[in-house]
């Protein structure tokens, strides 16, 4: 039995990715590994309450370091840097570590050869046991680069553990947007669930997320969360799905009880009622059909 990896994304932030990921984990009966790929705003642990079993610093790419004693402040490095990550201040070159990609251009151009690369800790990778299965999660240091690399590493760990333990499912809580960490979360996954909500902003973002899945050749389906906040816009999403040939997997209502459960750090599986197991069946069915 091969491992199926399902990633939950949204385009727009705050549509309910994390809440849905945890709730699906609560109804999916197969052995599973969970992963939180929203590494710069990770929240899945707040619903799953893992007991930590492993923690390791994440180094990512190295960054440039200037030997201040030898730097003449000539500014050649600043002119050559494409990432605006090195500047001459008070006569010496200073590296902005959050922006440095470690590409080595400054090392190459420096006439004094006074720049080198150093290791740079960009965050922490963690594993914990939860009632629903092992959780791999991470925390990027604020302002950090390399989110894509960090996500790739998390997914690799989750897959390794799934292979070793015989788990059949990897459920990944993805980041918002369509950039680096999203591309890294979706590439090579078996199926993407795009969580939308009935608003013009979310519909615009849904189109971009769906286009990205298309570019990455990952099959996807759509969930409309809080559908009853605007029946008119839910209908608009439904029509768009029909026109574009996208699978509408199901809907979840807005209910204060769901918000209250999440507020108390609890998975709102019960509050979502019968819609939830039905949604999970729909994800499984569509995911299998589209493989």
């Amino acid at each position: 039995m091969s491992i199926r990896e399902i990633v939950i994304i949204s385009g727009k932030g705050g549509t309910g990715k994390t809440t849905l990921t945890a709730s699906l984990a609560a109804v999916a009966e197969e052995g599973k590994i969970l992963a939180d790929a929203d590494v710069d705003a990770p929240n899945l642990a707040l619903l799953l309450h893992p007991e930590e079993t492993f923690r390791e610093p994440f180094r990512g790419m190295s960054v440039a370091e200037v030997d201040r004693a030898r730097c003449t402040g000539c500014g050649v490095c600043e002119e050559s840097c494409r990432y605006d990550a090195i500047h001459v201040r008070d006569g010496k070159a200073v590296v902005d570590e959050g922006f440095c990609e470690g590409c080595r251009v400054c090392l190459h151009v420096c006439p004094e050869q006074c720049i080198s690369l150093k290791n740079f800790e960009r965050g922490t990778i963690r594993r914990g046991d939860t009632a629903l299965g092992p959780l791999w999660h991470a925390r990027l240091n604020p302002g950090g680069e390399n989110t894509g690399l960090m996500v790739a590493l998390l997914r690799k760990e989750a897959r390794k553990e799934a292979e070793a333990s015989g788990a059949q499912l990897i459920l990944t809580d993805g980041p918002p947007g369509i950039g680096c960490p999203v591309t890294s979360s979706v590439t090579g996954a078996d199926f993407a669930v795009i969580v939308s909500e009935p608003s013009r902003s979310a519909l615009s973002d849904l189109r971009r997320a769906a286009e990205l899945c298309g570019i990455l050749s990952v099959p996807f389906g759509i969930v409309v969360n809080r559908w009853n906040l605007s029946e008119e816009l839910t209908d608009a999403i439904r029509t768009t799905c029909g026109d574009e040939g996208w699978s509408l997997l199901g809907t979840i209502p807005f209910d204060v009880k769901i918000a209250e459960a999440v507020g108390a750090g609890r998975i709102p599986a019960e509050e979502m009622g019968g819609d939830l197991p039905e949604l999970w069946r729909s994800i499984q069915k569509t995911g299998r059909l589209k493989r």
Partner: protein
Amino acid sequence: MKIAVASGKGGTGKTSISASLVLARPENLALDLDVEEPNLSILLGAFEGGVLPVTMPIARIEGSKCVECGKCARSCVFGAIAWMGAGFPVINDSLCRGCGLCPRVCPTEAIYEEDQTVGEVRSGTCGGIPFLEGRLRVGSVNTVRVIEETVKKAKAFNRTDWLMDCPPGTACPVAASLRHADLALLVTEPTPFGRSDLEGMLELTADMNIPTALVINKTGIGDLSLDDLCTRFGVEVLARYPFSRSAAECGARGESPFKTDAGWAEITRTLWSRIERRYS
């Protein structure tokens, strides 16, 4: 003053509150820096203006000049140049970050750079308000490049007051936006998720040494206290917007609650007067 509206967690109301602040002070230049999902224009009204492409250099190899030495492949830290030990190296476009190292190490000038479009900047007015928006091309991962190009274009507008709607998260895209701010206005919600991501944002603005203040949105839908974070980071709450179903519905239709909800508009005006009193 240049104000950055940021949040950490997505969906806390950055764009709604940015739009309201701009509508209350239309002399501000409105900047949508959430280039992966730009939505500010939806709330501001019809866009009039032009679209400029954002490009980034990408490496190319001229076969006739290449001596097949492999120096370019060995120098690339992104692993974007494949070389099998003989023959021409091959560049993988999606991994090339346009750093410009390989043209410099090539002994025969066989590598040149070609511009590739990674996004666009829309520049003009939105509902009559001066407006700029960055928009990442779907499939590109060069978020920061599009943000920087948008800011560069904004500088040419010669306006002293900016209102920047920033990307979610706490990673490089939001840091790239905050670099240009005199004040970070962090929009959060009183829930465990909102609180956790706010903490990351407060660490970031403290690291970057940017004056910071809070706006708590959707009060009533959660009631988690943020007081200890305010004390620890020395920040003040400048406004609290209660959760209101009608404001949410109005935002969903693409209308700013500033225009339709008197209570919301009043909170926004008070927020402005507090910002002006304390930070200008």
